[in-house]
């Protein structure tokens, strides 16, 4: 017993000593000849745990990739930890991923406050922090945070797109802007300002409300009194319904743009009154799986086939799956581009060098593309209008402004 133990201990020690020379890949953390480790955090528990399907979908995509042989012979080991949407736990779990599990990089962590808590840590450590599941604008700041990159169009890009469209339709518009007084709402101000520039102050009348306010009726009434003919709303669902209903009830008929997080039929349009919302404009970059136009679309067929095989019990109506499929496709593209050099520097270089890429679950014309100066992978969206029953896409895909 004793000798065996000592022998295995010696062998182990020898192995540890020899390891650095045997494995040159050690220079790229998280990468061996047969594996690449990728880390993520999501709210697997807690109030927003409905987003956990994103991680489920991504895990299934990596499983499909591994079944097909992986990337360059390497299997992806995708590790997801629960942070319960609490920023301190996000930091704890991220440090576990980086320091203990030694992942090569981080991918698609969920949430704005949670990613804020690790923003500096990952940039100090120079760990790629890629394609985050949040719509805030601050992730595309390559000069100050060269290791962090978002994915979906930010609220700011959304607002730029509305501003571009309305200038085309009404060059002399008088614009009312109603926004929630937080970083989400303020992104809409920034986006409109990006497009209007010096004209912002003369053209726009902006009013804010608190998330804790019971209603926004008074804001709508005072904005209507300015005689504005355009209303841009950076609002969350409950207030979106109030805004649509109130504007209709007081007989104000502006060209109304609604934040695309607040366009759900059942949560916003039905409570507002479907007939009161006719003509409201919003935007999207994904194909809506309930839209019959995509019934035989090859991209959506690819996605449905994937869901049937790898996520058989997944709810097909949940658009988090089409989102995750897009983010996962982008990640796999970056892995392929990296070739055999999976060092953190090269992963970041490739993530910042995606040539325009079509993705199965995104609208035609919406392409993922990045450059060292552009850390906003998706900058295009298409507008859609409420016809009383559903959202109808119109016009061409519009690109956000160059800032």
């Amino acid at each position: 017993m004793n000798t065996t133990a000592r022998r295995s201990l010696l062998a182990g020690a020898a192995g540890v000593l020899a390891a650095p020379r045997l494995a040159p890949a050690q220079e790229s953390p998280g990468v061996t000849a047969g594996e690449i480790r990728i880390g993520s955090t999501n709210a697997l528990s807690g109030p927003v745990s409905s987003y956990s399907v994103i991680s489920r979908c991504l895990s299934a995509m990596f499983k499909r990739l591994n079944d097909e042989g992986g990337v360059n012979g390497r299997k992806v080991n995708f590790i997801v930890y629960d942070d319960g949407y609490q920023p301190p736990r996000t930091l704890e779990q991220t440090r576990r991923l980086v320091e203990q599990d030694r992942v090569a990089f981080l991918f698609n962590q969920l949430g704005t406050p949670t990613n804020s808590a690790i923003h500096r840590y990952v940039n100090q450590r120079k760990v790629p922090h890629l394609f985050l599941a949040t719509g805030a604008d601050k992730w595309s700041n390559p000069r100050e945070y060269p290791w962090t990159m978002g994915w979906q169009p930010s609220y700011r890009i959304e607002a730029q797109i509305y501003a571009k469209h309305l200038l085309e339709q009404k060059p002399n518009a008088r614009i009312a802007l109603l926004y929630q007084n937080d970083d989400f709402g303020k992104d809409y101000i920034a986006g409109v300002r990006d497009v209007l520039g010096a004209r912002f102050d003369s053209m726009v009348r902006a009013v804010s409300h608190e998330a804790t306010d019971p209603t926004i009726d008074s804001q709508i009434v005072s904005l209507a009194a300015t005689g504005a003919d355009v209303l841009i709303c950076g609002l969350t669902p409950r207030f979106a319904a109030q805004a649509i209903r109130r504007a209709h009830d007081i007989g104000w008929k502006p060209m109304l743009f609604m934040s695309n997080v607040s366009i759900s039929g059942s949560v916003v349009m039905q409570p507002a009154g479907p007939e009161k919302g006719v003509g409201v404009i919003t935007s999207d970059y994904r194909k809506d799986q309930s839209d019959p136009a995509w019934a035989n679309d090859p991209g959506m067929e690819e996605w449905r086939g994937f869901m049937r095989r790898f996520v058989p019990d997944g709810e097909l109506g949940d658009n988090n799956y089409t989102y995750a499929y897009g983010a996962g496709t982008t990640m796999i593209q970056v892995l392929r581009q990296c070739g055999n050099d999976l060092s953190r520097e090269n992963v970041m270089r490739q993530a910042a060098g995606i040539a325009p890429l079509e993705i199965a679950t995104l609208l035609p014309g919406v392409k993922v593309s990045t450059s060292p100066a552009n850390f906003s992978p998706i900058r295009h969206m298409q507008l859609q209008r409420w016809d009383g029953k559903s959202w109808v896409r119109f016009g061409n895909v519009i690109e956000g402004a160059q800032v």
Partner: protein
Amino acid sequence: MSATEEIPATPVLAQASPRSAMANWQRGALVLLGSAAALAPIFVLESFQLFQLTMAVIMALAVLGLNIVTGYNGQISLGHGAFYAVGAYATAILMSHGDWSFWATLPVSAAVCAGLGYAVGFPALRLGGLYLALTTFSLAVAVPQILKHRAIEDWTGGVQGLFLVKPDPPSWLPVDADQWMYLVALGVSAVLFLLSWNLIRSRVGRALMAIRDNPTAAEAMGMDIATLKTRAFAVSAMITGIAGSLGAVVIEFVAPDSFGFGVSISLFVGMVVGGVASIAGSIFGGLFVLFVPNIAEEVSKAAPGVIYGAILILFLFLLPDGFAGLLRRAAARWRRVAARNGDGP
């Protein structure tokens, strides 16, 4: 069970004089062993594990604060997360807006939290038991929303929170930032644990427990219940607030979402699992609060909450009087066995 535990009281008494002769060096050895165990992680653990342990020490300190008011004084508080948040924000605001050093913010944070705790102590005088629990709980629910309010947004940073930078280790000490933060948390906690230990064993401590056990008798003995209760709340809030300050500087970020009512519940769980009215139990409570959710997640990623609940029920079932109760029972049995054999170790 309790009856059999009462019986060996006499043999223990018989052994009392040789035991107390040993007690001094035993206690000395215990303190040495304890400090060695507390300092060893610096040399043994990797930085991430050290970071986790630092957070566990901080949670232990927060649980200690709750234990003073709920464990020793019997005033149930489900709102200590609020004091934790206020302590964290006091430090964060002073460090990021005022460029204060971390150490300078500690007294301010302590004073602010003590004041707030004192204020909460007054309504607590008129509310007992479940009503007090709910009142304090409403505090925990309200604080994250108050932190977002427009009137104080310029200081608190609103939903986006505040960033701060943890203090650098002094140049004469050969440690890195994580090791230094562990030492800081350990040092501050050790001082507060020692002070609490002394407080509980003092006249005031006995008065706190007397008020918990029988307020009428305590009052008849001449104890000023109102003063003691409100001050217990103040001390308790101060300790938890200092834990919040340490937490803010270790995480280097505060945001309203960091201080949901889950924090208060976690502290309460830590207190019960560690041992109600136990100083040492608070340490175990801190470890439990930090590590058990991770263990639960390793078991099942699909439903970590269910596993956490199961572990919690298991603990309450196996250790009905908390971890401290287990220690007490083990010590009693050890003494009993030692007494029966007639020779102490």
